[in-house]
């Protein structure tokens, strides 16, 4: 039998840049993973890209972990999880991942960013980006039906875009898709083809389409998903008792097929029970529930060796950023900022604050899991150098050391531990850090205003998605909590936002990371790991960097 082949011309038909990327893959310049990410980003189907990657990389194609031969899959069973259930009405308005995990079982997204941080088409058949990444063609999958029997088509997508871009709905998609000035930028070409006309180029459109509030809604949706649980997803909502429980049943006519040739999902029933985290841990240990939403590091400690429970880690771009207001003294002086950066013993902070469960970080908001991350040496703890910087600052200002500063943060994840460690580590350098730690709500009321603070930032699949949010001129007044702007930085960032080529973008990221380390407004010791803790009889479970429950292909081995 002749092996299937994809020629370079066929690759170029999908996007002109893919053959170049393929050459780089063959030369070993980029990894298979980077190639898949790059090619799928340009609209190649994930299957074709994986196939090419397997051929080109010179390494053997191995089956994905957790993938089982079809003979083994068992159908049926109930999966129960402990997760707080909060306000749930309009999915576009979701501001918590917990709610998205509910909606995700009923509704689906246009794209899907998998646990490996690669984005692929989902309700889309494929997408195409123009060379200047200003025009995006979204080709919708045909033959998908809503659970009320209607056919999924471009009207639903147009309606959903309308909800995102309507300020009265209150969706965070509006801020995310700043490159869309309104519905005039969304064009319905035909029933299965929608075209986006961006005001400025952005390569992150596919990632944005998998942002957690971005589920596609039915064209007649009236604003409350509990009253109107119409979706294309694999489960139907049976019961939703706010603050108590959500129950889903398997849908019989779902469009995706399992490996055994019948429609997904494998499980019959999902139940989410709303409890406090500690109660959830006890319930998981005693076998009353099968999984626990987003375990904390202490839960990880409690569960990692528990019998019958499998704990799977995932690296993320989630972090607890130390940020300094550059419009206020003393942080307006780069010496003081850099002195603070030098006061981090990163490995020690990671150990004290997060049980060593994470990846060490530079003082730049770019994580190793970001495809275009530019690898650099992790800076050393150097209190002497920090002291020298502070002394020169103090001399110029005519003040005495120690320099007294207040570090504000919230008692939430590992912020108090980081703050406490930093207080001790920075003391020999001449900082006298006062701690101002409040409950999370108290910090979120003032997170953009405090002089010096530790803010939690969530995972975003691309660095170009997070940097414009907090380190640019136009983000002042919104999420630019440090007020830091830098013309050179912004120029490079804009270029990176329009650069699809991962290698070229990495070059830009090297410069971006250098600038942030040299004169940037943040310090960050580590990128958090997250975990998925699930009873061991469940198979095909994967830990997702944003704690998304992707359950359609999970099955129970009884």
């Amino acid at each position, binding site marked *: 039998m002749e092996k299937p082949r994809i020629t370079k011309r066929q690759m170029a038909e999908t996007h002109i840049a893919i053959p170049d990327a393929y050459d780089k893959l063959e030369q070993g310049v980029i990894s298979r993973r980077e190639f898949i990410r790059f090619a799928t980003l340009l609209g190649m189907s994930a299957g074709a890209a994986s196939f090419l990657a397997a051929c080109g990389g010179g390494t053997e194609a191995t089956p994905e972990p957790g993938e089982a031969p079809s003979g083994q899959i068992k159908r049926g069973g109930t999966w129960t999880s402990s997760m707080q259930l909060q306000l749930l009405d309009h999915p576009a*308005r979701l501001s918590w991942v917990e709610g998205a995990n509910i909606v995700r079982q009923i509704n689906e997204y246009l794209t899907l960013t998998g646990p490996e941080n690669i984005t692929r088409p989902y309700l889309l058949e494929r997408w195409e980006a123009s060379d200047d990444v200003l025009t995006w063609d979204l080709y919708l999958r045909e033959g998908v039906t809503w659970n009320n029997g209607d056919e999924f088509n471009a009207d639903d997508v147009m309606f959903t875009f309308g909800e995102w871009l309507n300020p009265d709905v209150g969706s965070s998609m509006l801020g995310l898709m700043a490159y869309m000035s309104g519905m005039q930028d969304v064009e319905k070409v035909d029933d299965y083809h929608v075209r986006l006309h961006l005001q400025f180029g952005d390569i992150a459109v596919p990632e944005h389409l998998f942002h957690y509030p971005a589920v596609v809604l039915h064209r007649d949706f009236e604003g409350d998903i509990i009253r109107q649980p119409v979706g294309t997803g694999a489960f139907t909502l049976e019961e939703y008792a706010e603050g108590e429980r959500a129950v889903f049943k398997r849908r019989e006519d779902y469009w995706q097929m399992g490996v055994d040739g019948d429609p997904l999902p494998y499980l019959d029933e999902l139940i989410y029970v709303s409890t406090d985290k500690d109660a959830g841990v006890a319930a998981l240990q005693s076998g009353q529930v099968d999984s626990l939403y987003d375990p904390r590091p202490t839960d990880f400690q409690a569960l990692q060796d528990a019998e019958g429970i499998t704990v799977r880690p995932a690296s993320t771009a989630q972090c607890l950023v130390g940020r300094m207001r550059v419009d206020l003294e003393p942080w307006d002086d780069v010496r003081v900022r850099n002195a603070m950066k030098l006061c981090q013993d990163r490995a020690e902070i990671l150990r004290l604050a997060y049980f060593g469960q994470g990846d060490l970080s530079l003082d730049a908001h770019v994580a190793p899991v970001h495809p275009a991350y530019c690898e650099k040496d992790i800076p050393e703890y150097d209190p002497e150098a920090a002291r020298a910087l502070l002394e020169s600052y103090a001399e110029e200002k005519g003040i005495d050391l120690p320099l007294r500063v207040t570090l504000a943060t919230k008692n939430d994840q590992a912020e108090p531990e980081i703050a406490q460690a930093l207080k001790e580590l920075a003391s020999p350098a001449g900082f006298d850090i006062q701690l101002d730690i409040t409950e999370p709500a108290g910090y979120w009321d003032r997170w953009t205003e405090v002089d010096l603070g530790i803010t939690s930032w969530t995972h975003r699949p691309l660095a170009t998605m997070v940097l414009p949010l907090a380190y640019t001129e136009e983000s002042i007044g919104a999420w630019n909590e440090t007020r830091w702007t830098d013309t050179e930085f912004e120029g490079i960032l804009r270029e990176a936002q329009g650069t699809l080529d991962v290698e070229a973008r990495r070059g830009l990221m090297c410069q971006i990371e250098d600038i942030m380390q040299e004169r940037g407004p943040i310090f960050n010791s580590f990128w958090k790991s997250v975990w998925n803790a699930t009873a061991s009889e469940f198979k095909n479970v994967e830990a997702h960097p944003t704690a998304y429950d992707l359950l359609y292909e999970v099955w129970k081995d009884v």
Partner: protein
Amino acid sequence: MARFIIRSIISTIVTMLLVSIALFFLVDVGSGDISVKILGVFATPEQRASYRAQLGLDAPAWQRYIDWLVGNDWRAERKVGYPLVTAMNPQTGEADWWADIDGQLTRWTMEEGQLLTLKRQEDGNTTKHLSSGAWELDEEGNETFWGVDTNNNAVKWQRGEGAEVWVLTKAGLRKEGDGPQQYIPLRKGLLRGDPGISLQFGRPVAVTLIPRIRNTLVLAGVAFSIIMPLALVLGILAGINEGKPLDRIISITSLGFTATPEFVTGIFLIIIFGIWLKVLPAVAIFTSPNAIFEDPKLLALPVLTLTAVELGYVARMTRASMVEVMDSPYIRTAIIKGMPKWRVVTKHAIRNALMAPITIIMLHVNWLVGGLVVVEVIFGYPGLGYYIYRSAIFGDYNAIEAAAMVTVAIAILTRLIGDLAYTLLNPRIRYA
């Protein structure tokens, strides 16, 4: 007696009113911007302002308090010009608001810049018609219209060059000068049995609150019926055996348990019985609304925890009271005249010794209903205390107010029962 009860009822109403006012303004001052909690920290100020208006949070606090108490449909009726009524939505089982135009229930909606009339049919479905001639000119020369929208708000729509708003069309969204300008989220007010919509959950408070009250009453009821008889018996036994080994054993054990806070006892019980031995459910996981009836074992550890905490308290109180009574001259007289000791205790001592414990017990009923926050959190038990706690953290004033009214009512009711119990125990006590 009748006068006493009437006076109690009046004072109850006054107390509830004062509590509701105090709570309302405390929550209002303390809770911060709710739109941030709902939309997340990343919403833009415009989005927040719009959302606050839709929730009616842009109205001043006194206005919202009056709305909460007596409703605002009468206020909105004057604007809309038709009687506003509620009708059951067969799909959700919740009440929807409609304008009653000569017997025809009507709502309005804006589509593609057109005002449409929705008419409710007998079966609960609606028909859509183009609305004509509804617009009125206001003082500033804008065309406006007050009606009821599909989200149970009285809404002022504006046509023409109003504020810039987004209007949803079939093809998506269009930016134009039309759209809703002002919202009054309709409600009947607590006095007419409508505690409003929970800001935290977006559902009517009553829908969530009633199962919570039921769950808590079950837990409290089971705990109460185990703890109180046991505590009284142990207290009486200890009291009549003052200073003897039995008294020492009862006193020290019960004191030891009471001195251990419930979050310690609870966690130990979970670890021992739920996780090591796996003989009892570690926490109260409600996989169905009636889980506690289907699997009463779920109650075992929470009740055990409550017993450990409460038992010593009541037992010690009873013991002290019993010791005092047993020392009194009339008991000595009864014993000296040769009455059997068990008769002395049952006939003369217990009645008098129960006065003090009754007060404690009645106070504890109240605590069992509204104050079980710690136990409910530890065991993940969906009860009233946990509900109040979460609502307070969120600043969900509708939910806090409704729950507080329930607990205040229970507090006063139990006090009343306590007062009446005194008269039964001691006929010398009379209320006039």
